[in-house]
């Protein structure tokens, strides 16, 4: 198990290093010099040069990369070019919207998908099964930003139950804030719930075909007893992987949904930073998101190994 853990940890580190190099190089070739962008078109060239050296932009590529990485490891993400505040502060504010939104959507997705998948598998080839299959086919085909617009039209414009966008802040109270995140979370959750329900269904069907399920039935358990006591637990393993993957989809998918609902989260921050050539913000937010994705994948792998001892043995 320790060896397995170490190997996975090494892979995680290598992925992060490679990702940071890619992100650094890609943001390096974004056209436009941040210094001249900050100073405006009519800026004095000398002043621009002074700002460049102040920002460290005149240093060689490798020095700048190392400075960036070392800073991040120490929790210092640098100073935003446009906001003139530490990036960590900017990100800290925004993540308080993006992360709850992601978790809210993940919760909704799981709450919808589990029962749907179980019902479909337990009543294979019945009307309930076909209804779930049909709904998931439709669910994966709907672009989440369009679904978001339809939700706004129905629940904000017509019924006026929710506001069409914006975020009151956590100071306005937990319920108020969660209410503002509800439509975005539903819009994000729908396609992911469809995928998850399908995985749940097929995983459960595969498990129900296995010998130990037949044995359980043979010793006199009813269909539903077998399902709940034996099949479900075993079927959950692949489902767990998908839930982990969905976290990253939801976190990144939030970028578009935040724009639909004018939520001041990480997604809006990245877009604004890109248009303002605020490279340091773009870089840091993207690497943070990549880190979140890689870390969650890692945790899922570990959970997987804990749940399924066969994997540990194989790695040994």
């Amino acid at each position, binding site marked *: 198990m320790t060896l397995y853990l170490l190997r996975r940890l090494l*892979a995680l580190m*290598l*992925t992060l290093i*490679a*990702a940071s190099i*890619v*992100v650094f190089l*890609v*943001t390096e*070739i*974004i*056209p436009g010099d941040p210094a001249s962008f900050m100073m405006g078109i009519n800026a004095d060239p000398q002043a621009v040069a002074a700002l460049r050296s102040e920002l460290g932009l005149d240093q060689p590529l490798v020095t700048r990369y190392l400075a960036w990485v070392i800073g991040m490891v120490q929790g210092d993400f640098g100073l935003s070019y446009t906001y003139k505040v530490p990036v960590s502060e900017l990100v800290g504010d925004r993540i308080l919207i993006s992360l709850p939104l992601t978790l809210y959507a993940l919760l909704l997705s799981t709450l919808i998908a589990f029962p749907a998948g179980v019902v479909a598998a337990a009543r294979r080839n019945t009307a309930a099964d076909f209804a779930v299959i049909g709904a998931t*086919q*439709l669910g*994966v*085909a*709907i*672009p989440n*930003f*369009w679904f978001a*617009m*339809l939700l*706004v*039209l129905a629940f904000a*414009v017509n019924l006026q139950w929710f506001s069409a966008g914006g975020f009151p802040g956590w100071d306005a109270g937990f319920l108020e804030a969660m209410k503002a995140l509800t439509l975005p979370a539903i819009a994000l959750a729908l396609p992911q719930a469809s995928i998850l329900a399908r995985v749940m269904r097929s995983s459960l069907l595969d498990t129900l075909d296995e010998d130990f399920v037949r044995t359980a039935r043979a010793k006199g358990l009813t269909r539903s007893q077998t399902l709940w006591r034996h099949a479900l637990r075993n079927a959950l393993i692949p489902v767990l992987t998908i839930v982990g993957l969905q976290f*990253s*989809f939801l*976190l*990144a*998918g939030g*970028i*578009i949904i935040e*724009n*639909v609902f004018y939520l001041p989260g990480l997604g809006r921050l*990245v*877009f604004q930073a*890109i248009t303002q050539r605020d490279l340091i913000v*773009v870089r840091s937010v*993207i690497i943070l*998101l*990549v880190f979140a*994705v*890689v870390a969650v*994948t890692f945790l899922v792998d570990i959970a997987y190994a804990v749940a399924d001892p066969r994997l540990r043995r194989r790695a040994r």
Partner: protein
Amino acid sequence: MSGHSQQETGFIRAALGHPAFLAGLLLTALFVAAALVSFVWTPFDPEKMQIAAKLKGPSTEHWFGTDHFGRDVFSMLMVGARVSIAVAFVAVGIGIGFGVPLGLYAAANRNSLIDEIVMRGNDLIFAFPSLLLAILITAVFGPGAINAIIAIGIFNIPVFARLSRGAALSLWTREFILAARVAGKGAARISVEHILPNLMNLLIVQGTIQFSLAVLAEAGLAYVGLGAQPPTPSWGRMLAEAQTFISLAPHMALFPGLAIVLTVLGLNLLGDGLRDLHDPRIRRSRG
């Protein structure tokens, strides 16, 4: 030869008895036809503005209504289908063109350094949330259809590399490959002459699924303003423009969204159907 045509008749018969496949085929054909017909005919000029007739709901003249510039929504959708098809087609092409050779090479040289590099490179691309990289790429190279294609295409490379590597690995253990090796054929020749033809079904099925994902991704990029630029109509941008007028002219948001949903649904049904039809086990259990 007769065996082959018999197989084909069997396929067609099975296809005719598979309603989901037929529905997918019909929807896909409709989408392709709309794009093709748009080259020679659209009800109105999709770029012509008629401010006097702006934000009109569906009517016998403008089937799907008009937008905030009085442009005909139906005509814009037809032309928009072209952009969706072109972007998705080339993006999937990039994925197959780079991914399949990489996968085949990695499988032929299993556990070599190249295999390791290819697989770790794939992991790296997978670690990036796809949308994020697409946004980054379009931010660097500027928005536009070509850059959207590149951004979506890059994501298709690891998908096809993994798929073809996995399938090729299991084929390499088969006897007919052993026979080819005994006959003195090299790894590259075996990959092209024996492995690749056996991957075709798999690639067609996955290609269809990736095509539908690419249509969705293109719409998403266009929605945030990073896809095809005006005045080229694109479904995603039509939705972005419709958002401002959602309470005034909901039809502007309804029809482009439905176009995306039906296209993606059609491609998914087609892909699932092809998988069923190519998998004899499933075909038998259905019959």
